[in-house]
């Protein structure tokens, strides 16, 4: 599989600059020095907790945010070069599905108006062709054609999310960035949408970037997974490998914290966990204060992402060869 998108050393800073009197203003690094590639036809999962920068990263990928430093390229072409940045050209190839399906639909527009917008503005489609295309999209997301004349508030969360997916598909993109697409949905509806996404990926030859805080969902949909903490990628690997043999202590903490139906005995940190102050980040590893294996090295030197084949980790003391899951969690029967 070849790389479709390449993200190189991307940093997104909020605030910063100087005041009128020349004093520096505080800056927060939402995403820091993140590099990875997205391969043609894969589902790349990105997991992390709130404040880890995953949503900012998602917005960078579709051009809703611009990186402060670094480069994003799509199919070899640089995207964020200010001289050639073309939002429409990007939107034709990379589309976005929002977390909250209802707030991403304008309450005063019919579904037809919402779905026609990308056809008019991105594909410059004539009216006759638009009607056929709308029917095709509605069929693809399994919604009845008469829904086209209705308003968003008339739909349940699951139906509204299908409309959000339909809008993203209308532009005929190659890549879909899905930002927590099922988090706002009830569990019974979650499965409907996940199965639909699976089907659409095969039907339309799509590449997914699937962002979620829910480890089980990410595991079930992803080919490869990135784990983010405090704006950086701390671990990367194929889904099977990363969930079976997590190397970074943070990944291990995440996995052991997730409750699983029918199992008891999640692991929890003894001390209260807090993220470092984003205005005054520590010099070393951001996770060191919470890490059971942290050494002085960790507190002083930032670990870089080291690649080993398909895996990568940013840790001075990766847990190689250490058994997983730990003994206190009952293993799940396969």
């Amino acid at each position, binding site marked *: 599989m070849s790389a479709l998108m390449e993200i190189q050393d991307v940093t997104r800073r909020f605030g910063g600059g100087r005041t009128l009197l020349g004093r520096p203003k505080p800056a927060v690094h939402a995403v820091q020095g993140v590099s990875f590639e997205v391969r043609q036809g894969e589902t790349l999962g990105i997991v992390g907790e709130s404040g880890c920068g995953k949503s900012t990263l998602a917005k960078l990928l579709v051009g*809703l945010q611009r990186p402060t430093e670094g480069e994003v390229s799509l199919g070899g072409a640089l995207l964020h070069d200010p001289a050639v940045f073309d939002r429409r050209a990007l939107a034709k190839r990379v589309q976005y599905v929002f977390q909250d399906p209802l707030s991403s639909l304008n309450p005063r527009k019919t579904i037809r108006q919402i779905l026609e917008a990308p056809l008019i503005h991105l594909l410059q489609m004539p009216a006759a062709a638009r009607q056929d295309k709308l029917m095709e999209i509605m069929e693809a997301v399994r919604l009845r054609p008469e829904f086209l004349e209705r308003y968003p508030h008339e739909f349940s969360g699951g139906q509204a999310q299908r409309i*959000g997916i339909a809008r993203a598909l209308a532009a005929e993109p190659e890549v879909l960035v899905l930002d927590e697409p099922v988090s706002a949905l009830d569990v019974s509806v979650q499965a409907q949408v996940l199965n639909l996404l699976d089907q659409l990926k095969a039907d339309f030859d799509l590449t997914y970037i699937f962002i979620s805080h829910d480890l089980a*969902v990410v*595991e079930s949909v992803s080919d490869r997974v990135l784990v983010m903490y405090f704006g950086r990628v701390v671990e990367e690997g194929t889904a099977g490998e990363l969930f079976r043999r997590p190397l970074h202590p943070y990944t291990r903490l995440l996995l052991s914290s997730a409750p*699983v*139906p029918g199992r008891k005995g999640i692991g929890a940190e003894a001390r209260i966990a807090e993220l470092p102050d984003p205005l005054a980040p520590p010099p070393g590893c951001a996770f060191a204060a919470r890490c059971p294996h942290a050494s002085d090295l960790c507190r002083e030197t930032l670990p870089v992402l080291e690649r080993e084949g398909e895996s990568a980790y940013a840790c001075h003391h990766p847990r190689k060869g250490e058994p997983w899951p730990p003994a206190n969690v009952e293993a799940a029967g396969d």
Partner: protein
Amino acid sequence: MTAAATATAPAAKAGSGRPSPLKLFLRNQLAAFGAGLLLVIILLVILTPFLPLQDPAATDPANRLLRPLAEGHLLGSDHLGRDILSRLLWGTGVSLLVGLSATSVAALFGSSIGILAGYFGGRADTLLMRGIDMLMAFPYILLALAIVAALGPGLLNALFAIAIVNIPFFARNIRGVTLGLAKREFIDAARLSGKSDLSILLTEVLPNVLPVIVITVSTTVGWMILETAGLSFLGLGAQPPDADLGSMLGEGRKLLITAPHVSVIPGVMIFLVVMSINLLGDGIRDLLDPRLKSGALARPAPMTEVDRPSAQTAPSAQAVAAMSAKQGSVLAVHDLETQFRIGSDVYKAVNRVSFDIRPNECLGLVGESGSGKSVTALSLLGLVATPPGRIVGGQVLLQGRDLLGLDAAGLRAVRGDGVAYIFQDPLTTLHPLFTIGDQIAEAIRSHKPVSYREAWASAVKLLDAVRIPNAAGRASAYPHELSGGMRQRVSIAMSLANDPELLIADEPTTALDVTVQAQVLKLLDQLRDDTDASLLFITHDFGVVSEVCHRVAVMYAGRIVEIGPTEEVLSAPAHPYTERLIACVPRLGEPGRRLEAIPGLPPAVNKLPPGCAFAERCPHAEDACRQGEIDLDAVNDAHQVRCIKPRNGQGGGAA
């Protein structure tokens, strides 16, 4: 509740039972009166050119200052002998026209500035709004006077002056609304659909701002007419021989003693015009403002209205219920029914729910949104808002005492003392202006006669008990200074303040990150062990249930469909809904498992089908499922299910 209502909205649109906007408006009698009066005035003004009136400018010195009802002059004549009725109607027309035009100009420019500033933000916002600030730095009427003085007197100039001084009012209002809209996701979505900024402003932002512009217009029009009249009164507006209401008032002022009718009549007209417009404007605002629509003006009662059949409130029934309550249960709920009445619809949010909780036990209440699990929890202490909610049946027995029979004072004594709540979002339940120590101390002092100092000491002890490091120091912190996990620990500490027998935790970890959730779950489990309290744990997550609950009750469409020991329900679910619900959740460590989605949506609780509410979505349903009441049947001693074809573990569960 609302989720269930909206879920089937497409199908149920016709019979929603909510009154139409026009009906709502007419129900506001004052607004309807204002609208009627204004309509009459406008009709008169429109008909003025066609009425057999004298020329308003024709002077007749011989017939000056005639009293009203004089021959040929219904309302008398003024100091030049001009017919007052004619001048009044023409003048009203001019005043209305100038006021409306000034409002339109102010609305157009003010709203444009507001939308641009709010949408683009940054430099554009600074530049535009500082300009507006400069306009506002001058006293209002002085600025209008200065503008007229610079442009010269005349109606048109007065109109401009009034419009300009009102621009800031629109600009600031609309900017605030746009600012909120510009951050909404549908704007981002429109950008990704390839729309240009101009197209987004016109087709996405404007339709959403329009109601606010209308509200602002409707509440300012009256004021603008008054201001125009003011300028004319000072001789800066309408110039003789033209008349508007203000200039008529100004001319009559000198004759106030000798011929009061000359000034009183236009004065009354100004009063009627402005009052009718303001009443109408208030009516429109009440109708369009979403904050008022949701009933923010209605004060909720201190407790849910209880309206049970008399058989359930009689002492004998209570005694029987108390006896039948399982021996030694802390809380026994019998056939609890809570309904919401909206318009002509009755939403059966909680439909004959029964369960009991034993000492030191944790019972999980699981369901999807709209299943009634939160309303059940709120009903226990009468916390469902009335209107529209009311409890129409059942008993809630805490240690054998019926809580639904208590009055407001009795309930208050139980709330936070015998039974305490932990809510989902601690940021909204903790008061932002008091320290957490203060808030916990208050919770203690509202139930125990202790001094503030003692209460504070107990608060520190409680914070220590929920493992907050440096509890003595942190007690003086404000809620915003703590992380989400810490805040939830504080609300747990507060719920423990009076050693409750029962804790009700409504999705206490849903808003938390998974690592923090793990800590809070462990803490709750440990505290339940340490304090002998029982726990009612409401969640949608079977993983969380496995972690902390001894028994679990599954709710669907307002009813408990299955209740039993956690391991048993999860490993061998008896109700098809439970089985499907477990099967459709991805499980960590089993990525290859296919997710069996449940087709369809839950039924709306105002249109429940006969028989089993799940039958429509159930693969095993048969005709018998869709008829009559289906009872909760025992699978074994501890496990009951509301299904005529229970699954005997064929489907397989979670473990």
